[in-house]
């Protein structure tokens, strides 16, 4: 199939960006979206032009590196997908496809479609862990954990940190990311010990880094490639408010 690509090009964080349009022919149906971009880049390089920079690595939906705003949606128009998992069979011959980087002041553009998501690491550093040193743990079966809690922990820990939730949110809120982490760790007796402190410090860091507030539009949930539920945000709010009342 033949497609037209409108891609955001920006040399670096300081320069001004603009859309460039490219015509790409002979795109195969069973290509992945990023293979289509590889194909475009090969063509650009051969014609003496700069290839489009984009983050990617595992190409199987688990490392969380990739993230392109495609036709107005993070990771494109498919259910529960990362950009790398998106396939060209979802597009039609003659389509125009618009590609933009994540849009959030907290994720500044590095180049073209690459953004700086280190703010997520900073939030995790603020408390997204259980404080246990190597060698201190008891036998793994010493503390039984109800299957339901283990399943909730799994679902929330399947967050790949891609940032689609922030990109989807009109307030660029990182609430789903933070709520997933605190919900994950609170499922375990070991994780409950620091639960209140964790919430307070992670939320404070999120605010400090300029992410917006949650207004329950559920856009994050709709675009999360791992299907993390907005109910985690409700849980976070409940614990956050009760912690603040005690303060």
């Amino acid at each position, binding site marked *: 199939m033949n497609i037209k690509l409108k891609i955001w090009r920006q040399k670096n964080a300081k320069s001004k960006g603009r859309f460039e349009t490219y015509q790409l022919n002979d795109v195969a149906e069973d290509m992945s979206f990023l293979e289509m971009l590889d194909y475009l880049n090969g063509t650009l*390089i051969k014609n003496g032009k700069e290839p489009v920079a984009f983050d990617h690595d595992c*190409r199987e939906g688990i*490392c*969380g590196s990739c993230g392109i705003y495609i036709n107005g949606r993070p990771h494109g128009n498919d259910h*529960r997908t990362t950009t790398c998992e998106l396939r060209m069979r979802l597009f039609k011959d003659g389509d125009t496809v618009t590609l933009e980087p994540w849009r959030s002041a907290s994720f500044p553009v590095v180049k073209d479609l690459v953004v700086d998501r280190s703010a*997520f690491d900073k939030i995790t550093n603020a408390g997204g*862990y259980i404080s246990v040193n190597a060698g201190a743990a008891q036998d793994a079966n010493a503390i039984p954990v*109800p299957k339901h809690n283990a399943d909730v922990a799994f679902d929330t820990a399947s967050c790949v940190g891609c940032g689609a939730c922030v990109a989807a949110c009109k307030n660029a809120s990182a609430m789903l990311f933070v709520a997933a982490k605190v919900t994950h760790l609170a499922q375990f007796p070991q994780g409950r010990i620091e639960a209140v402190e964790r919430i307070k410090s992670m939320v404070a860091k999120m605010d400090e880094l300029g992410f917006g507030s949650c207004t329950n539009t559920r856009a994050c949930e709709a675009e999360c490639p791992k299907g993390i539920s907005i109910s985690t945000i409700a849980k976070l709010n409940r614990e956050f408010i009760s912690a603040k009342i005690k303060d």
Partner: protein
Amino acid sequence: MSKLDAKIPEGPLADKWTNHKAKLHLVNPANRKKIDIIVVGTGLAGSSAASTLGELGYNVKVFCYQDSPRRAHSVAAQGGINAAKNYKNDNDSVYRLFYDMIKGGDYRAREANVYRAAEVSNLVIDHYTALGVPFARDYGGYIDNRSFGGVQVSRTFYAKGQTGQQCMIGAYSALSRQISKGTVTMYPRREMMDLVVIDGKARGIVVRNLITGEIERHSAHAVVLATGGYGTIYYLSTLALNSNGSAAWKAFKKGAYFANPSFVQIHPTSIPVLNDHQCKLTLMSESLRNDGRVWVPKQKGDTRKPNDIPEDERDYYLERRYPAFGNLVPRDVASRAAKERCDAGYGVGPTGLSVYLDFKDAINKKGRQVIEDSYGNLFDMYHKITGESPYETPMRIYPAGHYTMGGLWIDYNLMTTVPGLFAIGEANFSDHGANRLGASSLMQTSGDGYFILPYTIADYLADEIKTPKIATNLPQFDEAEKNARERINKFLSINGTETATSFHKRLGKIMWDYCGMVRNEEGLKKALTLINELKEEFWKNLKVPGTGEELNQELEKAGRVADFMELGKLLVYDALNRKESCGAHFREESQTDTGEAKRNDEQYSYVAAWEFNGDGNEPQLHKEELKFEFVKLQERSYK
């Protein structure tokens, strides 16, 4: 004195590590903060080592090429992590785990190292559980286990088909805690350009900041490489696209021996190649073989849809050939068996290069929900890529380049032949012999980082407590930086017509055709010629756009491919030298009457450790004899 002193402790197998630990020197807590350690890579090996060394109070610097340490390729491991807990009461033990690995590795691994990996496996599970890794549990709240290829017990801990991601998040969280405490400094988006060796000791690295292009110098009292494997040398592999062998290669060129480079695992269950633009093969976890049955039609070139082929016209060839292990034979055996059927004309799919992995019987027996709970995410992944649902149509699978058992040679203390340079996880060679068993990778890599390296590195550092901070303005740093700059400028100045990716693809095809699942002398010699020609062309006709002072992904690729051209030759030299078949290394000249790998223990029961001998020269072979004191060498049979 030979550099190949493996330092394996004397004494009974089960006491070796305990006795060795008792003799290792320590660094007292007050001295640790004066000692700098560099860790390169943040997968399960790098993150676990860095966080643990941070907890102990060392001053740690960690580097990764990704934008966040959480994205290292350990994240993509699917099936599970082994441990000898015996939670299933099926008579598992440390010894049995050890024995399975030694046999699974086709008797080409060190007994003492393998036993130790099995010994610390239980601690690894305890630690991950405490960190909040949600291993699958039953309704009583206890942890569940499943079975994996090459074993007859259920010792694999898992988190659906996402065990790597879940363990990685645990390891990353522990690392984050140390970063927040200031014991660890994180340097993401950095690529190691060179190792700096001063007076014979590893003293630092030179890295390129991938965003600014700046070349940075970092010094330390010891350097730990946790940079993973080099399976992307085949271009099409199950690895992340940016995974590479460059750090290990730079270490090799600075004097670290490279062991068994040709031992590469070809994973049997990957989604087959769909088109010519494909750059990556997606793995379908080995755990699927617990419930999936592998088959091809009995009739050559059968074009009927799989569900239209009646039961008695299907050849469940693994169950037929290997009744004792059936669909759960080890990876190398399963891969070759698939290749054998496809080469004989029984393969399915548009290219004839795939076989079926069928869940129909399991769904009928256990119900769809149980299968969904175990493998749901893998089925979804498969569906997205191929457009077919494995609940309804059998999966199509084919082998793909996956894991490298070979790597930097290390002694029992995980130290390379360069003093002060350590290698852990997939980057080293020691624990998997000629073939790795499923779910042993997460186990070994985490064991190295949490419970082995932190002890053994102290033994080295105990002599370094009086060494002041290493200056970064020493001539060795000047030279490393100069070399890195010259190389970058060279890439940018060739200005040819072909991209790095295109060269990589061509190299990958040579490696796959002649140094892949099967090898022979003629093909390997041909590969050497072809690689030499390709390398020459690469340095004349490479095209890298842009500059070195910015984010330049083409420049990154060029460096990695340039190293792969050289590393590829080392793989071929190693495969040529080893005129026996063992594990994943299958020399056509050495097979049994039934087409199984035929070892030659008299001549090849050794680790081949290669020494760099100058650019353009053949590397020098050193042999570390493998002594089997506790296990009797046998033909490795899964029948």
